[in-house]
């Protein structure tokens, strides 16, 4: 790898109850690229993603060992400030979960809790993020309407805009298009591709075609282990490992 890694995972092990969900993960997520995590359901890919911003902390019975370095800083260091870590990463979940407030307030929520109070600054931020996600023209006349009134596809873009408003460095997507129709899906996919100029993006997906369309790198996870990691074309078209080959061909699903 030529660039410096943005997230560096070292000997990460995750247990939930007495299940060993992730087994000695070592991986480097490159800067300003789209990296997709693929694998059959239940293989631990979502757990891996959530370990990046410590959302696993709230899972009952979880035990985490090893290191996750973000910009060289270990986020599982007991002294690390968890809200600060999470602010660096925007999360886009499987279904859109708009906060129970207006469109405007959804986007202003993050900046507000981080201390931005000035109306002009917030106005500008909201407009900027709505434009970045292509929502501005659709909602500019009803910024004070409840966010739950938007269509699912619009809600998901709003959630993306909401995440971008706190100025993250990394975007995490957890099967972010699985609840969307094909048109909304392709809008979100295009957004990911254009956003990688400014952000490092990590996606969990079980759709191989999507992984191929949007990502630069692919991590194949199976049974809690990283089986293969490399540039998209190589992993999908010319896998080194037998397991990867079978998964890509569709034997394992």
């Amino acid at each position, binding site marked *: 790898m030529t660039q410096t890694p943005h997230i560096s995972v070292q000997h990460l092990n995750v247990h939930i109850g007495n299940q060993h969900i992730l087994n000695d993960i070592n991986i480097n997520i490159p800067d300003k690229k789209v990296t997709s995590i693929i694998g059959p359901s239940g293989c631990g890919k979502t757990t891996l993603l959530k370990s990046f911003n410590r959302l696993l902390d709230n899972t009952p019975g979880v035990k985490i060992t090893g290191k996750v370095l973000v910009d060289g800083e270990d986020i599982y260091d007991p002294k690390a400030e968890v809200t600060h870590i999470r602010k660096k990463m925007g999360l886009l979940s499987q279904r859109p979960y708009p906060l129970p407030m207006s469109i405007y307030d959804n986007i202003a929520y993050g900046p507000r*809790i981080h201390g931005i109070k000035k109306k002009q600054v917030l106005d500008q931020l909201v407009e900027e993020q709505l434009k970045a996600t292509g929502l501005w023209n659709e909602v500019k006349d009803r910024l004070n309407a409840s966010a739950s009134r938007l269509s699912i596809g619009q809600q998901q873009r709003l959630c993306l805009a909401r995440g971008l408003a706190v100025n993250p460095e990394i975007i995490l997507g957890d099967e972010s298009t699985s609840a969307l129709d094909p048109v909304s899906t392709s809008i979100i996919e295009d957004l990911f591709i254009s956003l990688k100029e400014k952000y490092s993006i990590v996606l969990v997906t079980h759709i191989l075609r999507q992984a191929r369309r949007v990502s630069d790198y692919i991590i194949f996870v199976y049974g809690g282990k990283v089986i293969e990691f490399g540039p998209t074309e190589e992993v999908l078209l010319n896998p080194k490992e037998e397991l990867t080959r079978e998964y890509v061909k569709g034997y394992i699903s």
Partner: protein
Amino acid sequence: MQLRILKDKILSKLMLVLTLASVSLLLIIGIGLYLHSAPIIEKSSWGTLVTSSVWKPLRGLFGFFPFIMGTLWVTGIAIIIALPLCLLTALFITEYAQGGLKRILVPFVNLLSGIPPVIFGVWGVLFIIPLIQNHIAPHFVEFSTGYSVLAGGIVLAVMIFPLIVSIVSEVLNTIPQELKDASLSLGANKWETIKKVILRKALPGIIAAVVLAVSRAFGETIAVLMVCGNNAVVPHSVFDAGYPLPALIANNYGEMLSIPLYDSALMFAALLLFIIILLFNIISRVILSRLERKLAS
């Protein structure tokens, strides 16, 4: 930035304190009641207090046996009446009633649970007492005023309808459809499925519901007090008057405090209730939460 995190930490401690304070209420109530009933426990003993039938406060004799028996009679009658009715109702609501009927039946059970105890008492006086006095008792005994453990039991039974129906329905709803389908597809009809599969599966939940209902009935005060006759003798038939523990406390507190040890005796009654109800509640909650966990996994 730092301020927000500090705020979060302080609030977290505050909430911890509030939570611990409210939970420790259980302990504090127990200790408070014990300390205040200590004088009478020291004078007699647990054994004599609970088994003696002599209730002569003026001579310093406090025997709780009649009150305990009064409570048991009323509760027993209530459960005997309520359990079969509620079981059948819950089965009807969960297994037979279609959407529309269900939407009508369930709200009425909830409305019933909202009616305050004193209203049940008024109803008991106006409806159940004359019913027993004029229509039921004459068939069995020569004379009854109607104020009896039977009246208390019937009023209590109606009061615990909603509790049993809602818990049993909840338990029945958790039984997987596949299990019922399996029985039905073997040629059993609906009732046979209920009898052989559903009731067997739901048994722990039904027991938990009964235990909860018993503890609820033990503690019910005003409605029972209004219809029960309040006579400090051990009842021998359903038409005899009874004097349950909560009624004893409610009727006398604050009135006869000039008599030595009387207030201590009443606190002992409260302590007795508290301990029994605590035990019953813990038992049923443990059964229910186990059941929940078993069905969740």
